[in-house]
C-alpha cells in the first residue's frame, strides 16, 4: 500500500483505515480502502456519484458499519463487531467515538424544533455533561464567530440554507471534535450560498482542524486540501498532494472525471 510509509513518521495518524470494506446486501460499495489521516490534514475525497466516497465517510463515524477491515482512531482500534447492529446500536464506545468526530451533512439536518442556540448546546449538554451556562457561552462565541449570534433564538427554518449549514458546522464544532467529516456540505445549497460555507470550511482548515471533505468543488479541493483522494468503484484510484492530483492526474480515470467535472462547471 502506498500509505505504508506514513507509519514510519514519528506522529501517529489520528485515523487509520486498513482495508475497509462495506457491502449493502450483494452490492460491495467499498472494496478495501486504506487511508491514513494525520492531525491537521485536510483531505478532499472526490469521485463520481456511487463511487463509495460518502459511504467511506459514513463508515468513519460508524453511521454505516463496515463489513470488513480495520479502523484505528486516535491510537485506539475501533471495535467494529461491537457496532454490528448498525445505526441503532449505541454503547459507550460508539458514543464516545462519535463525540470526537464531527459530521456535516448535505441536508444540514438541523433540528427544526429547537432554536439555533439550542441546536448548538444540545449535544455538549446531553452527551458530554457540560453545564448549560458553559455550553451556552461557548455556543455564543461560536455563533458570533460566524456572524450569526443575533439569530440564536430563531428556529432553523427562518435561516437561509447557507446560514443553516454554517450553524450545522458550528454545532459539530461545539463538541470540540478531533476530526471533522463533510459529506457534500455544499451540494444542497443555491449557488450564491456556496461561498459562505466554503470560506468557513477554509477558515477551519487554516486553524488546523483535521478534515475529510467529500466534495464536488474541485477549486476548493485544490486550494484548501493538502491531499486529494480519488475514489472509483469502491477503491482508491489515485491519491496524493491536491495540487498534483488535480492538475496532473496520473490515472486515466481521474483525468476523465476531472474533465467531466470541470466541463460541467464551464456549462454552469
Amino acid at each position, binding site marked *: 500500500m502506498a500509505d505504508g510509509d506514513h507509519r514510519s513518521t514519528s506522529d501517529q495518524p489520528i485515523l487509520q483505515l486498513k482495508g475497509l470494506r462495506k457491502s449493502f446486501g450483494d452490492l460491495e460499495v467499498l472494496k478495501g480502502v486504506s487511508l491514513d489521516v494525520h492531525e491537521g490534514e485536510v483531505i478532499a475525497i472526490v469521485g463520481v456519484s456511487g463511487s463509495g466516497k460518502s459511504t467511506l465517510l459514513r463508515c468513519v*463515524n460508524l*453511521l454505516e458499519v463496515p463489513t470488513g477491515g480495520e479502523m484505528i482512531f486516535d491510537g485506539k482500534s475501533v471495535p467494529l463487531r461491537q457496532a454490528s*447492529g*448498525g*445505526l*441503532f*446500536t*449505541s454503547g459507550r464506545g460508539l*458514543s*464516545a467515538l*462519535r*463525540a470526537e*468526530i*464531527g*459530521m456535516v*451533512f448535505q*441536508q444540514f*439536518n*438541523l*433540528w*427544526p*424544533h429547537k*432554536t439555533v442556540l439550542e441546536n448548538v448546546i*444540545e*449535544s455538549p449538554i*446531553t*452527551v*458530554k455533561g457540560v453545564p448549560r451556562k458553559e455550553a451556552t457561552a461557548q455556543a455564543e462565541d461560536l455563533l458570533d464567530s460566524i456572524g450569526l449570534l443575533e439569530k440564536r433564538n430563531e*428556529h*432553523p*427554518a427562518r435561516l437561509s440554507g447557507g446560514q443553516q449549514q454554517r450553524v*450545522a458546522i458550528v*454545532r*459539530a464544532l461545539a*463538541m470540540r471534535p478531533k476530526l471533522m467529516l463533510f459529506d457534500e456540505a455544499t451540494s444542497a445549497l443555491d449557488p450564491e450560498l456556496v461561498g459562505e460555507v466554503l470560506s468557513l470550511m477554509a477558515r477551519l482548515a487554516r486553524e488546523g482542524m483535521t478534515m475529510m471533505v467529500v466534495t464536488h468543488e474541485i477549486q476548493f479541493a485544490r486550494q484548501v486540501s493538502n491531499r486529494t483522494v480519488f475514489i472509483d468503484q469502491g477503491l482508491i484510484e489515485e491519491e496524493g498532494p491536491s495540487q498534483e492530483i488535480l492538475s496532473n492526474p496520473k490515472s486515466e480515470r481521474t483525468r476523465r472525471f476531472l474533465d467531466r467535472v470541470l466541463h460541467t462547471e464551464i456549462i454552469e
Partner: protein
Amino acid sequence: MTTASADATSYSGMYGAVDGWWNQIEAYLPLFLPAAWIVIQVTVLSILLSWICGLVCALAKTSPYRVFQAPAEFYLWFVRGTPLLTQIFLVYFGLPQFGVRLDPFTAGVIALGVNGGAYVAEIIRGGLMSIPKGQRESSMALGMSYWQSMRRIVLPQVVRVIIPPITNDAATTLKNTSLLSTITIMELMLQTQIIVNSTFQPFEFYILVSLIYLAMTTVLMLAMRWAEKKHAIAY
C-alpha cells in the same frame, strides 16, 4: 289567520313537549353526574395506558431486532383482529380462571388501554417514519445514544405530527367506554339503560346521553386544536 293560529298551537305544543321532557329528565340528572365522572376517569386512565403500550410497541416494531419486532407484530395482529367486546370479556371474565381477579374498573381500563395501544402504536409509527432519517443521524453523529436521540430529537417532533390522529383515537376510547356497561361499570350507558327500564322513555334518555358524550368529545377536539396551535408556533 288559520295558519298563524296553527303555528301558535304547534309552537306551544312543541314547547310543551320540550318542557315535559325536561321535567322528566331533571329528576334523573343527578344520576348522570357520577356516571359521567366514571367515564372521564376510565377514559383518562385508558388513554394514558394506550400511549404507553403504543409507544413501546411502535419503538419495538421500528427496531431492527426481530426479538422486539415479533411480539409487537403479534400484539397488533391480535388486538386489531378481534372485537373490543371480546377483549373486554377476556380480561374481566377470562383472567379469573388464571387467578387474576380484577374489579370491573381495573379490567375495563386494562382492556381499553391495551386495545387503544395497538392503534396508538400505528399512529406513532407513522409519526416516526415521517421524521427524516437525517434527524436521527445527525444526533447519533454527535454522540447521542438511541434513547437520547429519541427523547431529545425524534419524539418531540413526532408529538407535533400525531396530535390530530391521537386525539381522534382518544375520542374513540371515550366512546368505547360505553362497552364497559357490559361488565357492570356504572358508567353512562349502563346508567341510562337502568333509567330507561323504569321510565320506558328510551328516546329521551338516549338523546340526553348522546348529548353528554358529544359535550365530552367536543371538549377533546377543542383541546386538540389548542395543542396543535401551541405546537405549531416557531417552525
